[in-house]
């Protein structure tokens, strides 16, 4: 019982360990040796701007191995700083870990692109586009879990959204209707979860899994029986237009990455800070968090626990549906069998990695988006290198991040516990 805490002031046994300096040191040595000393010959060109951009930045050219040595040494220095901090029992600050991570990524890109160019804007922009479904799925997860309901069904909601967006857009020839249908259907699916969890006190994980299996089954069936037969009419929506925001999109690097996108990406970029604002700065957010932590306490001050949970889960579902739409009309241009491919589950991991915080979760989602584009791009520039190895890299970075600053995360206290009145 949380209120039976021992009185404060008992000595804390918590000590900052040596996990971060050790992990950072080892990886710095790996970078220094494999990308630097034993690195590949050839020049790497970092292209900071594209040909069509208004403001042109000079390209940055360096020998691949040299870059490896420089970044490796700096990373080693950062590891030493981290060691000194650990000796003084203070934590390595998050900005230092971020710099470290960025250096590691630079070294990796430089190594992969020996005798080649690194299109920075292309990589960052595509990472964002690929991250959007995960990001929106994660927002659905944050909304539902903050109010106390585990939403395993994000995968199914993404798939539903993807399917509905593609089909409805194709049939009606109207993207707005397609996106609306995607959000609406995914919200309906969330309602099923919410009703089972709130009204029938069902085991939320089981309901979620069943919903996922159900959606995979239905979409597979419809895809085979209908979409492949009549693809031109019902599964050929194309993609949304790319919108350039005047002036902002002319900012070097950031402009094309952030402000030259499809509406789905813009929506994600708006929803993330908006959710943060609602969750932490408004009455509704305060109440939702209270319901997720201690529903009985919320009830005793007149907050309707069931209604709060119902709407947070449902609106979360609508956002996941939008994430699904981002897969089809926002990127691929057509629906494919099981095309959400585990993004919904990655979104769940992203929620935890982001500690149930919208902004952190969005950043974590970006990491996964980056890992996807990295694999594709690495295959093009260095076909010899096993792509599975490259794909590991972002996850190693994630582990460092988790070890370095995330620490022990604390989920909402009443997560997955049904609230029974009286």
């Amino acid at each position: 019982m949380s209120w039976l805490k021992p009185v404060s002031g008992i000595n804390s046994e918590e000590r900052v360990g040596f996990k971060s300096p050790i992990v950072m040191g080892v990886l710095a040595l790996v970078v220094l040796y494999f990308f630097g000393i034993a690195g590949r010959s050839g020049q790497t060109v970092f292209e900071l701007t594209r040909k069509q951009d208004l403001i042109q930045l000079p390209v940055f050219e360096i020998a691949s191995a040299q870059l490896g040595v420089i970044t490796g040494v700096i990373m080693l220095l950062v590891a030493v700083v981290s060691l000194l901090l650990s000796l003084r029992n203070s934590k390595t600050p998050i900005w230092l870990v971020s710099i470290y991570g960025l250096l590691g990524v630079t070294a990796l890109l430089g190594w992969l692109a020996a005798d080649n160019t690194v299109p920075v804007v292309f990589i960052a922009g595509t990472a964002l586009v690929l991250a959007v479904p995960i990001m929106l799925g994660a927002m659905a997860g944050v909304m539902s879990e903050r109010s106390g309901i585990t939403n395993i069904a994000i995968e199914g909601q993404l798939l539903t959204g993807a399917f509905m967006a593609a089909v409805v857009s194709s049939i009606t020839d109207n993207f707005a209707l397609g996106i609306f249908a995607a959000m609406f259907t995914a919200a309906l699916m969330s309602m099923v979860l919410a009703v089972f969890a709130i009204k029938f006190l069902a085991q939320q994980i089981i309901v979620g899994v069943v919903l996922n299996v159900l959606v995979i089954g239905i979409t597979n069936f419809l895809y085979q029986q209908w979409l492949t037969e009549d693809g031109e009419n019902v599964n050929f929506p194309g993609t949304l237009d790319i919108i350039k925001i005047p002036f902002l999109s002319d900012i070097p690097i950031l402009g094309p990455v952030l402000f030259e996108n499809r509406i789905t990406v813009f929506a994600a970029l708006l929803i993330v800070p908006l959710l943060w604002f609602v969750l932490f700065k408004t009455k509704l957010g305060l109440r939702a968090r209270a319901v997720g932590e201690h529903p009985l306490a919320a009830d005793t001050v007149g907050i309707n626990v069931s209604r709060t949970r119902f709407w947070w889960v449902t609106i979360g579902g609508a956002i996941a549906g939008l994430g699904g739409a981002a897969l089809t009309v926002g990127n691929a241009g057509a629906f494919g069998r099981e095309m959400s491919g585990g993004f919904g589950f990655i979104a769940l991991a992203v929620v935890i990695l982001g500690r149930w915080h919208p902004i952190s979760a969005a950043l974590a989602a970006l990491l996964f988006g980056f890992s996807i584009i990295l694999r594709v791009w690495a295959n093009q520039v260095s076909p010899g290198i096993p792509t599975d190895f490259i794909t590991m890299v972002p996850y190693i970075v994630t582990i460092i991040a988790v070890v370095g600053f995330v620490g022990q995360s604390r989920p909402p206290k009443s997560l997955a516990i049904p609230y029974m009145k009286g």
Partner: protein
Amino acid sequence: MKLELRGITKRFGQLVANDSINLVVQPGEIHALLGENGAGKSTLMNVLYGLYQADEGQILLDDKAQKFSGPGDAMASGIGMVHQHFMLIPVFTVAENVALGNEPTGLFGTFKLAEARKRVVEISDRFGFNVDPDALVEDLPVGVQQRVEIIKALSRDAKVLVLDEPTAVLTPQETDELMAIMRQLAKAGTSIVFITHKLREVKEVADKITVIRLGKVVGDAAPDASTSELASMMVGREVDLTVTKRQASLGDEVLRVENISVLDDRNQRAVNGVSFMVQRGEILAIAGVQGNGQTELAEALLGLRPVIKGSGSISINGEHRKSQASVRDVLESGVGFIPEDRKKDGLVSEFTIAENLMLNASYKSVFTKGLNINFAARKKISKDLVERFDVRTPSADHLAGKLSGGNQQKVVVARELYRKVDLLIASQPTRGVDVGSIEFIHEQLVAERDAGKGVVLISTELDEVLALADRIAVMYRGQIIGIVGPETSREQLGKMMAGVAA
């Protein structure tokens, strides 16, 4: 505001928790609702607060009938409640907790934290509560958390304030402070309903007393009624509140604890360098407010929780205990254990009484025949124990979970005392237990002591400690602040429980 309950009846299936209860609380009155655990006090207040709906009866405020479909309605009508288990969000600040459900908002429903803080400071200053609006509730001592609850009720203009067993978690000093606050509020016109089973507190603070037994009002009493009068009203028969025990005849040392430290679940040092010893033939009480390391100490003694490596040692019967001794090793070395939460650690509710009685000796020859259970022996032993320990049940084959709290506890005591033990560790043995069972369990503890066993009684109830102990060790923030004799005054013990060394 005048509160009146008329003929409130609340049933849970077969059980009638409240049976046409009538109650009138005048404005500015401190009205004590006295009754045993399970008498139906909390149910009644939950009906009043709109958490439960009454099956029959009426709630009237200033003679107007009210209909509460939820706590929100009750609050809007001016009823505030401080629950026994605080209704606070541990990860929220004081200001957020106080504002929750009644938030000052600005444009787009933004939560105006500054205004919420101001409200807390204002009320805190008016009554001298000294509460920091920005502190996280989980970091606050329970006494302060309770004040946050009171602020929460006052910030909603509560005219009737219900306090449900408010002193259970407080030190005697904090209890005194709370009573001063209650008087102050009553003087300002607030009607107060004070729910408790502690006679002393009722006599001290109440203007009027209503006694409830088995869901019915058994009568009113004035605060100058004698303690034994109130007790017999509450229990329904004459109660002997004093425990008679002979002079202790001390034997060999049975337990020696030297300088041990133990971590709690959050890796905080809950027990910090504790040393004491217990001789045969005495009861050593470990007193202290809940959450000062008693739970962890008891678990460490039993081997459920590791002692921090190298911090100290535990010897039983003069034999040094291995640092990683298993619970079975400890039990085999002659230790009996009554855990503080019988539902969680004492019994398996879904098992029968007989099955529960064999739990700590399931592997022993008395209960087994080869690989099988010796059902005949178990039947005989359990029948015998049910009789000897006065467990009120039709048979030993009944589910333990269906018994009343007192009878469940008797099953636990029977199981622990059936084996030959040299040392009995009893952690909160009478919490949530009816007075009859309390008397019985106290007798058993004294009998063990008189039979030359060592007894460690861990209790947060000062009355229990003073009634039973031969020596009293007071725990505060993981340390033993002093070990004193049983003649020590309440005030002195209260000071020690608040951390002032003897």
